[in-house]
């Protein structure tokens, strides 16, 4: 499905209030497996709730709960914005 207004974005660039879709997860790095089990699978949409006052971690809201992730440990996710 092609959404006209979506464009790729890196985890480190996320800003408060953005709506994001996970385009691809990577299967080679171990970090990603646990995060997928936390619900961050391909196609999942989440909202960026907040970036911590010191710049990291990032709080997101997905599947009805809140999760904080470090920017450096989520590099392998391919993300895009959702309008």
């Amino acid at each position: 499905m092609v959404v006209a207004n979506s464009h790729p974005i890196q985890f480190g660039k996320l800003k408060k209030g953005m709506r994001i879709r996970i385009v691809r997860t990577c299967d080679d790095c171990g970090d990603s497996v646990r995060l997928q089990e936390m619900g961050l699978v391909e196609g999942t949409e989440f909202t960026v709730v907040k970036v911590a006052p010191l710049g990291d971690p990032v709080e997101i809201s997905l599947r009805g709960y809140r999760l904080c992730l470090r920017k450096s440990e989520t590099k392998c996710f391919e993300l895009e914005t959702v309008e």
Partner: protein
Amino acid sequence: MRRSALSSKRSSKAAVAQDRSPAPRSQERLIAIVGNPNAGKTTLFNALTGSHQKVGNYPGVTVEKVSGKIKLASGNVECIDVPGLYSLNAVSEDENVAVDVIEGRSQGVRKPELLVCVVDAGNLERNLFFYTQIAETGIPIVVALTMVDRVKGELDLAKLSKFLGVDVVPIVGHKDKGIKELKDQIERNLQDPRKPQVDLGSIDSLDAHAHQLGERLARIGADYTVAEVRRELIEPSEGFDRYLNQAPEMREAFSQAREELAKESTWVVNAGTTGRYEWAGMVQRTVLKAAKGTPKRSLTDRLDLILTHRVFGLGIFIGTMYLVFQSIYTFAQPMMDAIQWVFNSLGDLVRPGLAFSPILQSLVVDGVIGGVGAMLVFLPQILILFFFIAVLEGTGYLARAAFLMDRLLGWCGLNGRAFIPLLSSFACAIPGIMSARVMPDPKSRLATILVAPLMSCSARLPVYILLIGAFIEPRFGKGWAGFSLFAMHLLGLVVAIPIVWFLNRKVLKGKRLPFFLELPPYQWPKWRDVWLAMYFRGKVFVNTAGTIIVVTSIAVWALSYFPRSTEAAQSYRTEYVRLKGVAPNSPEAQHHVDEEQLAHSFLGRFGKTVEPVFVPAGFDWRITTAILSAFPARENVIPALGIIFNLGEQKADGSHADLEKSLKDSTWPDGRPLMTPWTSIGLMVFFALCCQCMSTLATIKRETNSVKWPIFVFTYMTVLAYIGAVVINQVGLALGH
């Protein structure tokens, strides 16, 4: 595949364990509570078992084993509180243990007959993801649906129960709502177990393979459902792997099927998780009719606007921490004084009764009563700190604090959760180390435990005050005195940074879990959970650390007491009386006898023997002996210095004026002053960095379940302390002091 590599290692260990595991002692039936972290598992466990709990360790690992008894109409059943899990695909030690317990591989723990799976109604999707994995273990399940009071909208329990294939009991754990119903269901399911049947459905080629393989398995007499075969295709379990050893042709068929599936797409590693979440999402949409209208901003959202705010959030965090530690100091001190008073009075009470035997008197009063008192004096701090931790954790604020602090601690290799253990260690390392349990990643937890004793605890304070008062303040003034005190507290923290860095690079190798943190909704603390947490933390401390502390206190007492004889004491007294011309029973003469006896004890002789080692640091045998006698507990150094420097213990008002004067007047045999400002700084640095606390080492032993780590901590801290003291003294000498 990652999982199979991990599994084969574990299964060989488990196989050995099973051969050795003893027959179950009790005939009580065993059930286990499983579920996601933050789903209300502990609250439910406390509601079911009350205070009938046992806290221990699983053999060979650092994971705490909590079990208890549930009273049912037909008798008691034993219940294990399994550590919280996000997935059966274990990555941490806690999770490995949890999975082993569920699957009956844990040494000395029987396979549970029934699982109570805790499912958080407010977080259905992720909890149901875990349920799909648990359902495939083939163990009968009862679902306890928690937080039903938080669900906004309508929840169709009958439909949910149908999807899950088991009984679902809604509960509110802390209000004991639904607990009776849950007990009834546990009882019914123990008599007539219900194995869950979850149909994850939908991936055609996977299903086709699973059907085909299932039929082949049935032909050779192996009974597997299609769902089970599908799971083995996606995530092979070691039980099945072992079974395949007997059926090589089936192993071949399975790997062929996996290869074919792998050609289709990349989903073999992945489809398991995606498929399960698809199913969980479908179930949630079907059973939960959300309330109409746009949801208004929740209380949690509104609180988080302030509590994790850029400015207010950090301010409130600092304020909260200040309040916590201020309370520990304020509330613990009178209790500690009271404990000390009780044990001193007890000693005074017992002493006359044992006057007939000086050895027995000293053993009981100084060794046993003194030792037990020195251990129990830590209890108030432990209880107060765990009260606050339980409250902060129960409300959900602890997770926010970790969120705020992660960046700060992250750059030296720790994470946000390390701040409570490290900050607590400034009061006392023992509760600090115990509180490192809030860290799920075992490597970060171990690194935190290993540097926690470097934080300057309150027992170092008397030493700083004595030495700063004697050598810094008179010469450099109050400003520098305050600065020295601050610098001593900062020293441990500064030294800890390169140590953590080194530990992470060189010692604690291997994979670190990615840091992720769930921010649960805010709620009121559950008081029963708070009291039980305090009670069991205190009990664990007294039982395990306490024993070791009392034993070593007695050992050090013996080393400083023996050998001794009345003849020798008499001759010290006569000699002193002859030299000084004082009355034989004057206090001065008695102090001299005490000093000589200590000097001639094993400890004193040892101090003289190792004096050359400490001379580069500027310490003579007297300071060396005081340091050695302070290894079990650093606060021992003040009375030891008092005895050695011929002054007896500190005065009743707690001031060290006499000891200060005596330290200042002391000289080397050649007349040089013993203590210069540099030596005194060196001595303070020694105390700041040295691990002179048996209780801490005993706690590390318990928390890491290994003697290796306390020895490591003791060694590195002692070496650091020695180097620090020597360097400072040598710099002082080079500058001509």
